[in-house]
Protein backbone atom coordinates (compact mmCIF):
# COMPACT_ATOMS: atom_id res chain seq x y z
CA UNK A 1 0.00 0.00 0.00
CA UNK A 2 1.43 3.41 -0.87
CA UNK A 3 1.66 6.18 1.66
CA UNK A 4 -1.13 8.06 0.00
CA UNK A 5 -3.43 5.05 0.02
CA UNK A 6 -2.85 4.43 3.69
CA UNK A 7 -3.44 8.08 4.36
CA UNK A 8 -6.81 8.10 2.64
CA UNK A 9 -7.82 4.88 4.34
CA UNK A 10 -7.12 6.14 7.81
CA UNK A 11 -9.14 9.28 7.20
CA UNK A 12 -12.03 7.33 5.77
CA UNK A 13 -11.84 5.05 8.79
CA UNK A 14 -12.27 8.06 11.03
CA UNK A 15 -15.28 9.18 9.01
CA UNK A 16 -17.12 5.92 9.07
CA UNK A 17 -16.39 5.39 12.76
CA UNK A 18 -18.40 8.44 13.55
CA UNK A 19 -21.41 7.28 11.59
CA UNK A 20 -21.34 3.63 12.56
CA UNK A 21 -23.38 2.16 15.33
CA UNK A 22 -21.23 0.68 18.06
CA UNK A 23 -20.95 -3.08 17.73
CA UNK A 24 -21.01 -4.84 21.06
CA UNK A 25 -18.27 -7.42 21.49
CA UNK A 26 -19.13 -10.67 23.22
CA UNK A 27 -18.09 -10.48 26.87
CA UNK A 28 -16.11 -13.71 27.30
CA UNK A 29 -13.99 -12.78 24.25
CA UNK A 30 -12.96 -9.46 25.63
CA UNK A 31 -12.05 -10.93 28.98
CA UNK A 32 -9.84 -13.48 27.29
CA UNK A 33 -8.38 -10.69 25.18
CA UNK A 34 -7.65 -8.65 28.24
CA UNK A 35 -5.74 -11.42 29.93
CA UNK A 36 -3.74 -12.30 26.86
CA UNK A 37 -2.77 -8.67 26.44
CA UNK A 38 -1.93 -8.48 30.11
CA UNK A 39 0.39 -11.43 29.91
CA UNK A 40 2.18 -10.12 26.85
CA UNK A 41 2.46 -6.70 28.44
CA UNK A 42 3.87 -8.21 31.60
CA UNK A 43 6.52 -10.04 29.62
CA UNK A 44 7.43 -6.94 27.64
CA UNK A 45 7.45 -4.77 30.71
CA UNK A 46 9.48 -7.16 32.84
CA UNK A 47 12.96 -6.00 31.81
CA UNK A 48 11.99 -2.39 32.36
CA UNK A 49 10.43 -3.16 35.69
CA UNK A 50 13.42 -5.18 36.84
CA UNK A 51 15.95 -2.60 35.74
CA UNK A 52 14.14 0.34 37.34
CA UNK A 53 13.40 -1.40 40.61
CA UNK A 54 16.93 -2.80 40.88
CA UNK A 55 18.38 0.61 40.17
CA UNK A 56 16.57 2.11 43.14
CA UNK A 57 17.16 -0.70 45.62
CA UNK A 58 20.28 -2.29 47.04
CA UNK A 59 21.88 -5.05 45.05
CA UNK A 60 20.25 -8.42 45.38
CA UNK A 61 16.79 -7.20 46.40
CA UNK A 62 15.02 -9.50 44.01
CA UNK A 63 16.87 -12.45 45.41
CA UNK A 64 16.04 -11.52 48.95
CA UNK A 65 12.54 -10.14 48.70
CA UNK A 66 10.88 -11.66 45.72
CA UNK A 67 9.07 -10.01 42.87
CA UNK A 68 8.08 -6.87 44.73
CA UNK A 69 10.90 -5.46 46.85
CA UNK A 70 9.66 -3.13 49.51
CA UNK A 71 9.55 0.60 49.01
CA UNK A 72 11.41 1.12 52.25
CA UNK A 73 14.60 0.00 50.55
CA UNK A 74 14.58 2.90 48.14
CA UNK A 75 18.10 4.20 47.64
CA UNK A 76 20.01 6.39 45.26
CA UNK A 77 23.34 4.89 46.12
CA UNK A 78 23.53 2.86 42.91
CA UNK A 79 23.29 6.01 40.87
CA UNK A 80 26.03 7.52 42.94
CA UNK A 81 28.32 4.58 42.21
CA UNK A 82 27.44 4.69 38.53
CA UNK A 83 28.26 8.38 38.34
CA UNK A 84 31.64 7.67 39.85
CA UNK A 85 32.38 4.66 37.69
CA UNK A 86 31.96 6.38 34.35
CA UNK A 87 31.68 10.08 33.46
CA UNK A 88 27.99 9.88 32.68
CA UNK A 89 27.32 13.58 32.38
CA UNK A 90 30.23 14.08 30.02
CA UNK A 91 29.15 11.13 27.92
CA UNK A 92 25.60 12.44 27.74
CA UNK A 93 26.95 15.70 26.39
CA UNK A 94 29.00 13.83 23.83
CA UNK A 95 25.95 11.88 22.70
CA UNK A 96 23.87 15.04 22.47
CA UNK A 97 26.64 16.68 20.49
CA UNK A 98 26.83 13.75 18.10
CA UNK A 99 23.06 13.61 17.64
CA UNK A 100 22.81 17.33 16.98
CA UNK A 101 25.67 17.40 14.52
CA UNK A 102 24.73 14.24 12.69
CA UNK A 103 21.01 14.98 12.44
CA UNK A 104 21.49 18.57 11.34
CA UNK A 105 24.04 17.55 8.73
CA UNK A 106 21.97 14.66 7.40
CA UNK A 107 18.80 16.73 7.13
CA UNK A 108 20.44 19.74 5.56
CA UNK A 109 22.54 17.82 3.03
CA UNK A 110 19.62 15.49 2.47
CA UNK A 111 17.11 18.24 1.84
CA UNK A 112 19.46 20.00 -0.53
CA UNK A 113 20.12 16.77 -2.38
CA UNK A 114 16.47 15.75 -2.51
CA UNK A 115 15.58 19.13 -3.90
CA UNK A 116 18.23 18.85 -6.56
CA UNK A 117 17.04 15.40 -7.47
CA UNK A 118 13.43 16.45 -7.97
CA UNK A 119 12.98 19.93 -9.30
CA UNK A 120 15.71 21.06 -11.60
CA UNK A 121 16.13 18.80 -14.61
CA UNK A 122 19.76 18.05 -15.25
CA UNK A 123 21.71 15.38 -16.93
CA UNK A 124 23.31 13.42 -14.10
CA UNK A 125 20.16 13.36 -12.01
CA UNK A 126 19.34 9.71 -12.51
CA UNK A 127 22.89 8.60 -11.82
CA UNK A 128 23.03 10.65 -8.64
CA UNK A 129 19.82 9.14 -7.36
CA UNK A 130 21.00 5.66 -8.25
CA UNK A 131 24.12 6.35 -6.21
CA UNK A 132 21.99 7.31 -3.23
CA UNK A 133 19.98 4.11 -3.60
CA UNK A 134 23.15 2.05 -3.75
CA UNK A 135 24.29 3.44 -0.41
CA UNK A 136 21.00 2.26 1.10
CA UNK A 137 22.10 -1.30 0.56
CA UNK A 138 25.52 -0.90 2.14
CA UNK A 139 25.46 -1.74 5.83
CA UNK A 140 27.48 0.70 7.92
CA UNK A 141 29.20 -2.04 9.90
CA UNK A 142 30.78 -3.43 6.75
CA UNK A 143 32.68 -0.29 5.81
CA UNK A 144 34.19 0.59 9.16
CA UNK A 145 37.74 -0.40 8.35
CA UNK A 146 38.51 2.17 5.66
CA UNK A 147 36.64 4.84 7.60
CA UNK A 148 38.72 3.87 10.61
CA UNK A 149 41.90 4.23 8.58
CA UNK A 150 40.77 7.59 7.25
CA UNK A 151 39.50 9.19 10.43
CA UNK A 152 42.38 7.86 12.54
CA UNK A 153 44.81 8.91 9.85
CA UNK A 154 43.75 12.52 9.84
CA UNK A 155 44.18 12.60 13.58
CA UNK A 156 40.56 13.07 14.54
CA UNK A 157 40.31 10.17 16.98
CA UNK A 158 38.42 10.70 20.21
CA UNK A 159 36.36 13.70 19.09
CA UNK A 160 32.66 14.31 18.56
CA UNK A 161 33.38 15.16 14.95
CA UNK A 162 35.08 11.81 14.50
CA UNK A 163 31.98 9.99 15.70
CA UNK A 164 29.68 11.94 13.38
CA UNK A 165 31.82 12.40 10.32
CA UNK A 166 31.08 9.19 8.40
CA UNK A 167 27.39 9.92 8.85
CA UNK A 168 27.12 13.56 7.91
CA UNK A 169 25.08 12.46 4.92
CA UNK A 170 22.86 9.41 4.80
CA UNK A 171 20.93 7.74 2.04
CA UNK A 172 17.68 7.11 3.87
CA UNK A 173 16.78 10.73 4.71
CA UNK A 174 17.64 11.71 1.15
CA UNK A 175 15.39 8.97 -0.12
CA UNK A 176 12.52 9.88 2.21
CA UNK A 177 12.64 13.54 1.37
CA UNK A 178 13.08 12.92 -2.30
CA UNK A 179 9.94 10.82 -2.40
CA UNK A 180 8.11 13.49 -0.44
CA UNK A 181 9.30 16.34 -2.63
CA UNK A 182 8.37 14.39 -5.74
CA UNK A 183 4.79 14.30 -4.51
CA UNK A 184 4.61 18.07 -4.21
CA UNK A 185 2.63 19.48 -7.14
CA UNK A 186 4.99 20.85 -9.73
CA UNK A 187 2.98 24.05 -10.04
CA UNK A 188 3.91 25.09 -6.55
CA UNK A 189 7.56 24.94 -7.41
CA UNK A 190 7.10 26.63 -10.72
CA UNK A 191 5.16 29.44 -9.09
CA UNK A 192 7.91 30.01 -6.61
CA UNK A 193 10.49 30.06 -9.37
CA UNK A 194 8.48 32.52 -11.41
CA UNK A 195 8.21 34.74 -8.38
CA UNK A 196 11.99 34.98 -8.47
CA UNK A 197 12.59 32.90 -5.39
CA UNK A 198 16.04 31.32 -5.30
CA UNK A 199 16.37 27.55 -5.04
CA UNK A 200 17.51 27.49 -1.45
CA UNK A 201 14.78 29.81 -0.31
CA UNK A 202 12.20 27.80 -2.20
CA UNK A 203 13.44 24.67 -0.55
CA UNK A 204 13.31 25.90 2.99
CA UNK A 205 10.28 28.14 2.96
CA UNK A 206 7.99 26.32 0.56
CA UNK A 207 8.90 22.75 -0.22
CA UNK A 208 9.97 21.54 3.20
CA UNK A 209 7.02 22.98 5.06
CA UNK A 210 4.80 21.26 2.52
CA UNK A 211 6.35 17.94 3.45
CA UNK A 212 6.39 18.30 7.20
CA UNK A 213 5.42 14.70 8.08
CA UNK A 214 8.15 13.13 5.98
CA UNK A 215 10.75 15.67 7.04
CA UNK A 216 9.81 15.02 10.64
CA UNK A 217 10.15 11.30 10.05
CA UNK A 218 13.55 11.86 8.50
CA UNK A 219 14.64 13.96 11.46
CA UNK A 220 13.44 11.31 13.89
CA UNK A 221 15.17 8.55 11.96
CA UNK A 222 18.44 10.47 11.86
CA UNK A 223 18.33 11.45 15.51
CA UNK A 224 17.50 7.94 16.62
CA UNK A 225 20.23 6.38 14.50
CA UNK A 226 22.75 8.89 15.86
CA UNK A 227 21.68 8.34 19.46
CA UNK A 228 21.78 4.54 19.15
CA UNK A 229 25.11 4.29 17.34
CA UNK A 230 27.45 1.80 18.97
CA UNK A 231 29.99 0.07 16.75
CA UNK A 232 31.59 3.09 15.16
CA UNK A 233 31.74 5.23 18.34
CA UNK A 234 33.34 2.28 20.10
CA UNK A 235 36.10 2.07 17.53
CA UNK A 236 36.93 5.70 17.11
CA UNK A 237 36.97 6.87 20.74
CA UNK A 238 39.46 5.86 23.39
CA UNK A 239 39.04 7.75 26.61
CA UNK A 240 35.91 7.51 28.71
CA UNK A 241 35.33 11.27 28.54
CA UNK A 242 34.93 11.20 24.79
CA UNK A 243 32.64 8.25 24.51
CA UNK A 244 28.96 8.34 23.74
CA UNK A 245 26.56 7.23 26.42
CA UNK A 246 25.76 3.99 24.60
CA UNK A 247 29.39 2.93 24.61
CA UNK A 248 29.90 4.25 28.11
CA UNK A 249 27.05 2.23 29.48
CA UNK A 250 28.31 -0.96 27.89
CA UNK A 251 31.64 -0.39 29.57
CA UNK A 252 29.91 0.15 32.88
CA UNK A 253 28.40 -3.27 32.40
CA UNK A 254 31.84 -4.70 31.77
CA UNK A 255 33.69 -2.92 34.54
CA UNK A 256 34.69 -4.56 37.78
CA UNK A 257 33.31 -1.72 39.82
CA UNK A 258 29.73 -2.47 38.96
CA UNK A 259 27.34 -4.93 40.49
CA UNK A 260 24.02 -5.60 38.71
CA UNK A 261 22.17 -2.86 40.61
CA UNK A 262 24.71 -0.27 39.55
CA UNK A 263 24.58 -1.46 35.96
CA UNK A 264 20.81 -1.11 36.00
CA UNK A 265 21.17 2.38 37.43
CA UNK A 266 23.34 3.26 34.48
CA UNK A 267 20.86 1.74 32.06
CA UNK A 268 18.05 3.76 33.64
CA UNK A 269 20.01 6.96 33.21
CA UNK A 270 20.54 6.26 29.54
CA UNK A 271 16.94 5.57 28.65
CA UNK A 272 15.11 8.17 30.72
CA UNK A 273 15.04 10.80 27.95
CA UNK A 274 13.91 8.37 25.27
CA UNK A 275 11.33 6.75 27.55
CA UNK A 276 9.83 10.13 28.29
CA UNK A 277 9.83 10.81 24.59
CA UNK A 278 8.05 7.56 23.82
CA UNK A 279 5.43 8.05 26.50
CA UNK A 280 4.67 11.58 25.42
CA UNK A 281 4.92 11.13 21.69
CA UNK A 282 3.60 7.61 21.24
CA UNK A 283 0.45 8.62 19.43
CA UNK A 284 2.37 11.01 17.27
CA UNK A 285 4.85 8.30 16.36
CA UNK A 286 2.09 5.96 15.25
CA UNK A 287 0.43 8.63 13.17
CA UNK A 288 3.70 9.60 11.61
CA UNK A 289 4.34 6.03 10.65
CA UNK A 290 0.87 5.56 9.26
CA UNK A 291 1.21 8.63 7.12
CA UNK A 292 4.78 9.21 6.19
CA UNK A 293 7.11 6.31 6.51
CA UNK A 294 5.17 3.30 5.37
CA UNK A 295 5.06 2.75 1.68
Amino acid at each position, binding site marked *: MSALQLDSLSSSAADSARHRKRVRLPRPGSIVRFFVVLII*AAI*IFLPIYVSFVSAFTPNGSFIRQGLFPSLADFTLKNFDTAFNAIPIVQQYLVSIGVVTLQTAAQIVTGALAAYALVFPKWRGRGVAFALVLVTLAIPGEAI*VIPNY*ELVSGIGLRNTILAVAIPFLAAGYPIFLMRQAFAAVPFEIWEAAKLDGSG*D*IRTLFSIIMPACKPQVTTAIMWSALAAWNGFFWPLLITDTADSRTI*QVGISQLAASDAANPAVIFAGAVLVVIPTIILVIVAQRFL*VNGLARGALR
Partner: protein
Amino acid sequence: MRMGTRIAPTPGRHRFGKNGIGPWLVVPAIALLLIFVIWPLIRTVQLSTYTSDLLGNPTRFVGFDNYIALFSSPDFIRTVFVTIVIALLGMAMATTTAVCAALLLRSRLLGGRVFSIVFSLPFAYSAASASVVFAGLFAPSVGILNVILGYFGVDGPDWLTNPFSAIWAIAIATAWYEFGFAFLVMTAAVRGLAPEVIEAAQLDGAGGLRLAWRVLIPLMRPSILFLTVTQTISGLQTFAQIQVLTKGGPAGSTTTFVYRLYQLAFGNGVPDFGRASVIAIVLVLLVTLITWIQFRLFGREKTS
Protein backbone atom coordinates in the same frame (compact mmCIF):
# COMPACT_ATOMS: atom_id res chain seq x y z
CA MET B 1 10.84 37.39 -2.84
CA ARG B 2 9.54 40.35 -4.76
CA MET B 3 5.80 40.38 -4.47
CA GLY B 4 3.56 41.30 -7.34
CA THR B 5 6.19 41.21 -10.02
CA ARG B 6 6.26 38.25 -12.36
CA ILE B 7 9.65 37.83 -13.86
CA ALA B 8 10.41 35.29 -16.50
CA PRO B 9 13.40 33.04 -15.67
CA THR B 10 16.58 34.53 -17.06
CA PRO B 11 18.08 32.39 -19.78
CA GLY B 12 21.60 31.35 -20.60
CA ARG B 13 24.08 33.80 -19.22
CA HIS B 14 23.79 32.78 -15.58
CA ARG B 15 26.96 31.26 -14.15
CA PHE B 16 25.21 28.05 -13.24
CA GLY B 17 23.31 27.51 -16.44
CA LYS B 18 19.60 27.51 -16.86
CA ASN B 19 18.96 25.64 -13.68
CA GLY B 20 20.77 28.11 -11.50
CA ILE B 21 22.29 26.68 -8.39
CA GLY B 22 19.70 23.91 -8.28
CA PRO B 23 21.59 20.80 -9.35
CA TRP B 24 24.67 21.82 -7.37
CA LEU B 25 22.75 21.45 -4.17
CA VAL B 26 23.24 17.74 -4.52
CA VAL B 27 26.99 18.07 -4.20
CA PRO B 28 27.47 18.11 -0.41
CA ALA B 29 25.46 14.93 0.08
CA ILE B 30 26.97 13.12 -2.90
CA ALA B 31 30.48 14.14 -1.92
CA LEU B 32 30.00 12.89 1.63
CA LEU B 33 28.45 9.66 0.45
CA LEU B 34 31.27 9.09 -2.00
CA ILE B 35 33.93 9.67 0.62
CA PHE B 36 32.38 7.81 3.52
CA VAL B 37 30.31 5.10 1.90
CA ILE B 38 31.22 4.38 -1.70
CA TRP B 39 34.97 4.72 -1.47
CA PRO B 40 35.17 2.68 1.76
CA LEU B 41 33.29 -0.08 0.01
CA ILE B 42 35.79 -0.09 -2.83
CA ARG B 43 38.66 0.07 -0.38
CA THR B 44 37.20 -2.84 1.59
CA VAL B 45 37.13 -4.92 -1.56
CA GLN B 46 40.74 -4.00 -2.12
CA LEU B 47 41.72 -4.81 1.46
CA SER B 48 40.05 -8.16 1.23
CA THR B 49 42.43 -9.18 -1.53
CA TYR B 50 45.59 -8.13 0.27
CA THR B 51 47.56 -9.43 3.19
CA SER B 52 48.23 -6.86 5.84
CA ASP B 53 51.24 -6.19 8.02
CA LEU B 54 51.28 -5.95 11.80
CA LEU B 55 49.66 -2.54 11.68
CA GLY B 56 46.90 -3.45 9.29
CA ASN B 57 48.40 -1.77 6.24
CA PRO B 58 47.74 -3.75 3.07
CA THR B 59 51.00 -5.00 1.65
CA ARG B 60 50.75 -7.79 -0.85
CA PHE B 61 48.07 -8.71 -3.34
CA VAL B 62 46.93 -12.26 -2.72
CA GLY B 63 43.83 -12.45 -4.82
CA PHE B 64 41.25 -14.74 -3.33
CA ASP B 65 43.54 -16.33 -0.74
CA ASN B 66 41.83 -14.60 2.15
CA TYR B 67 38.45 -15.68 0.87
CA ILE B 68 39.50 -19.28 0.49
CA ALA B 69 41.13 -19.34 3.92
CA LEU B 70 38.02 -17.95 5.53
CA PHE B 71 35.44 -19.98 3.64
CA SER B 72 37.23 -23.22 4.32
CA SER B 73 37.45 -22.72 8.05
CA PRO B 74 34.69 -24.45 10.01
CA ASP B 75 34.44 -21.38 12.20
CA PHE B 76 33.23 -19.40 9.26
CA ILE B 77 30.43 -21.78 8.47
CA ARG B 78 29.32 -21.52 12.05
CA THR B 79 29.53 -17.74 11.92
CA VAL B 80 27.21 -17.68 8.92
CA PHE B 81 24.82 -20.02 10.67
CA VAL B 82 24.84 -18.05 13.91
CA THR B 83 24.31 -14.73 12.17
CA ILE B 84 21.36 -15.93 10.15
CA VAL B 85 19.76 -17.77 13.05
CA ILE B 86 19.99 -14.80 15.38
CA ALA B 87 18.63 -12.46 12.73
CA LEU B 88 15.68 -14.70 11.88
CA LEU B 89 14.86 -15.68 15.47
CA GLY B 90 14.90 -12.10 16.63
CA MET B 91 12.80 -10.93 13.72
CA ALA B 92 10.29 -13.78 14.06
CA MET B 93 9.73 -13.24 17.74
CA ALA B 94 9.47 -9.48 17.49
CA THR B 95 7.18 -9.43 14.46
CA THR B 96 4.84 -12.15 15.62
CA THR B 97 4.38 -10.63 19.04
CA ALA B 98 3.94 -7.18 17.53
CA VAL B 99 1.26 -8.39 15.13
CA CYS B 100 -0.59 -10.09 17.96
CA ALA B 101 -0.30 -7.12 20.26
CA ALA B 102 -1.47 -4.65 17.62
CA LEU B 103 -4.42 -6.81 16.62
CA LEU B 104 -5.43 -7.46 20.21
CA LEU B 105 -5.55 -3.74 20.83
CA ARG B 106 -7.47 -3.06 17.66
CA SER B 107 -10.75 -2.49 19.34
CA ARG B 108 -11.50 -0.99 22.68
CA LEU B 109 -10.10 -2.66 25.72
CA LEU B 110 -9.88 -1.79 29.36
CA GLY B 111 -6.61 0.03 29.86
CA GLY B 112 -5.87 -0.11 26.14
CA ARG B 113 -4.07 3.21 26.20
CA VAL B 114 -1.75 2.05 28.97
CA PHE B 115 -1.03 -1.19 27.20
CA SER B 116 -0.29 0.69 24.05
CA ILE B 117 2.31 2.77 25.80
CA VAL B 118 3.84 -0.21 27.55
CA PHE B 119 4.24 -1.97 24.23
CA SER B 120 5.95 1.07 22.78
CA LEU B 121 8.46 1.41 25.58
CA PRO B 122 11.15 -0.94 24.21
CA PHE B 123 11.46 1.53 21.34
CA ALA B 124 13.21 3.82 23.82
CA TYR B 125 16.03 1.30 24.16
CA SER B 126 18.96 0.94 21.83
CA ALA B 127 20.68 -2.36 21.21
CA ALA B 128 23.35 -1.36 23.71
CA SER B 129 21.07 -0.22 26.51
CA ALA B 130 18.76 -3.21 26.02
CA SER B 131 21.78 -5.50 26.21
CA VAL B 132 22.88 -3.88 29.44
CA VAL B 133 19.45 -4.50 30.94
CA PHE B 134 19.48 -8.10 29.77
CA ALA B 135 23.00 -8.53 31.13
CA GLY B 136 21.51 -8.07 34.54
CA LEU B 137 18.65 -10.42 33.72
CA PHE B 138 20.78 -13.16 32.23
CA ALA B 139 23.81 -12.87 34.51
CA PRO B 140 25.24 -16.25 35.47
CA SER B 141 24.01 -17.41 38.86
CA VAL B 142 22.80 -14.01 40.04
CA GLY B 143 20.72 -13.09 37.03
CA ILE B 144 17.31 -11.78 37.98
CA LEU B 145 15.48 -13.61 35.22
CA ASN B 146 16.24 -17.01 36.67
CA VAL B 147 15.33 -15.76 40.11
CA ILE B 148 11.92 -14.68 38.83
CA LEU B 149 11.43 -17.85 36.83
CA GLY B 150 12.23 -19.65 40.04
CA TYR B 151 9.22 -18.03 41.71
CA PHE B 152 7.07 -19.65 39.07
CA GLY B 153 8.73 -22.96 39.64
CA VAL B 154 10.69 -22.83 36.39
CA ASP B 155 14.37 -23.73 36.42
CA GLY B 156 15.97 -21.28 34.03
CA PRO B 157 18.91 -22.35 31.88
CA ASP B 158 22.43 -20.94 32.07
CA TRP B 159 21.60 -18.22 29.62
CA LEU B 160 25.02 -16.91 28.78
CA THR B 161 27.27 -19.83 29.51
CA ASN B 162 25.52 -22.58 27.61
CA PRO B 163 26.17 -22.56 23.85
CA PHE B 164 22.59 -23.41 22.98
CA SER B 165 20.82 -20.99 25.29
CA ALA B 166 23.31 -18.23 24.54
CA ILE B 167 21.91 -17.87 21.02
CA TRP B 168 18.42 -17.65 22.49
CA ALA B 169 19.61 -15.07 24.99
CA ILE B 170 20.92 -12.86 22.21
CA ALA B 171 17.83 -13.42 20.09
CA ILE B 172 15.52 -12.57 22.99
CA ALA B 173 17.38 -9.37 23.81
CA THR B 174 17.28 -8.43 20.12
CA ALA B 175 13.61 -9.26 19.72
CA TRP B 176 12.75 -7.26 22.82
CA TYR B 177 14.19 -3.98 21.71
CA GLU B 178 13.04 -4.45 18.12
CA PHE B 179 9.53 -5.11 19.41
CA GLY B 180 8.99 -1.44 20.25
CA PHE B 181 9.37 -0.26 16.69
CA ALA B 182 7.55 -3.30 15.35
CA PHE B 183 4.56 -2.57 17.55
CA LEU B 184 4.39 1.04 16.39
CA VAL B 185 4.49 -0.03 12.78
CA MET B 186 1.87 -2.74 13.24
CA THR B 187 -0.43 -0.37 15.11
CA ALA B 188 -0.18 2.09 12.28
CA ALA B 189 -0.96 -0.69 9.85
CA VAL B 190 -3.95 -1.83 11.87
CA ARG B 191 -5.24 1.72 11.94
CA GLY B 192 -5.11 1.78 8.19
CA LEU B 193 -7.33 -1.26 7.69
CA ALA B 194 -10.51 -0.46 5.81
CA PRO B 195 -13.44 -0.96 8.19
CA GLU B 196 -15.78 -1.90 5.39
CA VAL B 197 -13.80 -5.01 4.55
CA ILE B 198 -13.65 -5.96 8.21
CA GLU B 199 -17.35 -5.45 8.72
CA ALA B 200 -18.14 -7.47 5.65
CA ALA B 201 -16.02 -10.33 6.90
CA GLN B 202 -17.57 -10.11 10.34
CA LEU B 203 -21.05 -10.25 8.86
CA ASP B 204 -19.95 -13.34 6.98
CA GLY B 205 -19.42 -14.95 10.33
CA ALA B 206 -15.69 -14.56 10.70
CA GLY B 207 -14.81 -13.62 14.24
CA GLY B 208 -11.80 -13.32 16.47
CA LEU B 209 -8.93 -15.52 15.41
CA ARG B 210 -10.29 -16.45 12.04
CA LEU B 211 -10.91 -12.84 11.20
CA ALA B 212 -7.39 -12.00 12.14
CA TRP B 213 -5.81 -14.84 10.28
CA ARG B 214 -7.87 -14.80 7.09
CA VAL B 215 -8.57 -11.14 6.66
CA LEU B 216 -6.57 -8.75 8.80
CA ILE B 217 -3.12 -10.18 8.52
CA PRO B 218 -3.23 -10.51 4.75
CA LEU B 219 -4.33 -6.89 4.59
CA MET B 220 -1.37 -5.92 6.72
CA ARG B 221 1.03 -7.82 4.55
CA PRO B 222 2.98 -4.89 3.14
CA SER B 223 3.76 -3.54 6.59
CA ILE B 224 4.62 -6.98 7.91
CA LEU B 225 6.92 -7.51 4.98
CA PHE B 226 8.53 -4.14 5.57
CA LEU B 227 9.15 -5.10 9.19
CA THR B 228 10.53 -8.54 8.51
CA VAL B 229 12.94 -7.26 5.91
CA THR B 230 14.26 -4.31 7.89
CA GLN B 231 14.55 -6.36 11.05
CA THR B 232 16.35 -9.16 9.26
CA ILE B 233 18.81 -6.73 7.75
CA SER B 234 19.53 -5.07 11.04
CA GLY B 235 19.61 -8.47 12.72
CA LEU B 236 22.33 -9.60 10.35
CA GLN B 237 24.45 -6.80 11.73
CA THR B 238 24.03 -7.76 15.37
CA PHE B 239 27.00 -6.55 17.36
CA ALA B 240 26.19 -4.61 20.51
CA GLN B 241 24.36 -7.49 22.15
CA ILE B 242 27.30 -9.81 21.55
CA GLN B 243 29.81 -7.27 22.77
CA VAL B 244 27.92 -6.70 26.00
CA LEU B 245 26.51 -10.14 26.77
CA THR B 246 28.64 -12.95 25.40
CA LYS B 247 31.71 -11.65 23.56
CA GLY B 248 31.18 -14.27 20.89
CA GLY B 249 31.10 -17.22 23.27
CA PRO B 250 30.50 -19.63 24.77
CA ALA B 251 32.34 -21.95 22.45
CA GLY B 252 31.98 -19.37 19.71
CA SER B 253 28.26 -19.99 19.60
CA THR B 254 27.32 -16.35 19.34
CA THR B 255 29.99 -15.05 17.00
CA THR B 256 28.12 -13.14 14.32
CA PHE B 257 29.51 -11.59 11.15
CA VAL B 258 30.06 -8.18 12.61
CA TYR B 259 31.49 -9.55 15.82
CA ARG B 260 33.94 -11.67 13.85
CA LEU B 261 34.87 -8.61 11.84
CA TYR B 262 35.52 -6.77 15.06
CA GLN B 263 37.61 -9.62 16.44
CA LEU B 264 39.76 -9.89 13.34
CA ALA B 265 40.23 -6.18 12.80
CA PHE B 266 40.28 -4.71 16.28
CA GLY B 267 39.91 -7.30 19.00
CA ASN B 268 42.90 -9.56 18.52
CA GLY B 269 45.67 -7.09 19.14
CA VAL B 270 47.06 -7.68 15.68
CA PRO B 271 44.76 -6.03 13.13
CA ASP B 272 44.04 -8.39 10.27
CA PHE B 273 42.25 -6.01 7.97
CA GLY B 274 42.55 -8.41 5.07
CA ARG B 275 40.48 -11.22 6.52
CA ALA B 276 38.14 -8.83 8.29
CA SER B 277 37.38 -7.18 4.97
CA VAL B 278 36.36 -10.52 3.52
CA ILE B 279 33.70 -10.76 6.20
CA ALA B 280 32.62 -7.23 5.41
CA ILE B 281 32.19 -8.02 1.74
CA VAL B 282 30.17 -11.14 2.47
CA LEU B 283 27.94 -9.05 4.72
CA VAL B 284 27.45 -6.45 2.02
CA LEU B 285 26.51 -9.11 -0.50
CA LEU B 286 24.04 -10.69 1.88
CA VAL B 287 22.39 -7.40 2.74
CA THR B 288 22.32 -6.31 -0.88
CA LEU B 289 20.61 -9.55 -1.78
CA ILE B 290 17.92 -9.05 0.83
CA THR B 291 17.48 -5.38 -0.05
CA TRP B 292 17.06 -6.33 -3.68
CA ILE B 293 14.42 -8.87 -2.70
CA GLN B 294 12.69 -6.16 -0.72
CA PHE B 295 12.54 -3.81 -3.64
CA ARG B 296 11.22 -6.51 -5.92
CA LEU B 297 8.50 -7.47 -3.47
CA PHE B 298 7.41 -3.91 -3.01
CA GLY B 299 7.70 -3.11 -6.68
CA ARG B 300 8.94 0.41 -6.05
CA GLU B 301 9.74 2.88 -8.80
CA LYS B 302 13.28 4.02 -8.45
CA THR B 303 13.12 7.23 -10.38
CA SER B 304 10.11 9.40 -10.96
